[in-house]
């Protein structure tokens, strides 16, 4: 029973702060609400007994990515006054489009057959188990992702150079 209440509280927290990311006028406040969303989702991961993913979510998203966003926003000196806004009818259209997408997805997933699942081995989120799978079955993709990071790093440095020859 307690788990259900925790799920509902964390879910409401995530959804409300995600909505605030969209509707908040000041970009710095948007970033802070996004951090709240990620913390709530990390709580949901803990509820699923996926501790490793929860910790990585907090460290990577709330730690690294959000600091990057904050740095860029403060570097570019964005604030409420310089914030561009869409016309009212386009905002209305965006909300209607989002609502219709939600309606379509929920009504599609409602008829999907997923009643047969039951979690038996609840230890699959443990770090030891995940490490065995990651460095056994998925060793090659892991190494390839290192190449991806190298490419991203080179690309970022090249893009931020003042005059590219």
């Amino acid at each position, binding site marked *: 029973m307690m788990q259900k209440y925790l799920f509902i509280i964390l879910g409401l927290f995530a959804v409300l702060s995600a909505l605030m990311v969209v509707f908040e006028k000041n970009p710095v406040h948007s970033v802070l609400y996004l951090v709240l969303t990620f913390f709530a989702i990390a709580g949901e991961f803990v509820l699923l007994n996926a501790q490793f993913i929860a910790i990585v979510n907090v460290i990577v998203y709330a730690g690294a990515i959000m600091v990057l966003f904050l740095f860029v926003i403060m570097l570019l000196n964005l604030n409420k006054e310089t914030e561009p806004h869409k016309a009212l009818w386009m905002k209305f259209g965006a909300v209607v489009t989002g609502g219709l997408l939600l309606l379509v997805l929920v009504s599609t*997933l409602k008829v999907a057959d997923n009643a047969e699942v039951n979690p038996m081995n609840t230890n699959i989120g443990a770090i030891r188990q995940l490490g065995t799978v990651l460095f056994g079955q998925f060793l090659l993709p892991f190494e390839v992702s290192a190449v991806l990071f190298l490419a991203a790093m080179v690309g970022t440095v090249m*893009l931020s150079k003042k005059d590219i020859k």
Partner: protein
Amino acid sequence: MNALLKEIPLNWYIILSTVLFSIGVMGVLFRRNAIIIFMCIEIMLTAVNLLTVAFSVYHNDSAGQVFVFFTMAVAAAEVAVGLAILIVMYRNTKSTDIDVLNRLRG
């Protein structure tokens, strides 16, 4: 722990991540600031991560959580490159408004 996990139906996770994904799509259409659009893309990625982890736990398969790990790695690389592109764009146009970037229009 087994009995506790069964208390929450899988459908709840599906609906929560659907709602978060739709909020992300709405945000991309709603805002003009390119940085906020990036943040909404992050919300969408996290919604998909939540769904993948829920399926992985309810189907007893660790591979799903490893996929989420890779998704996070790709998201981190994407944000780094995307923000670098944004800074170059700001240097050229002095704004992060995506409506300014219509020069590729035919």
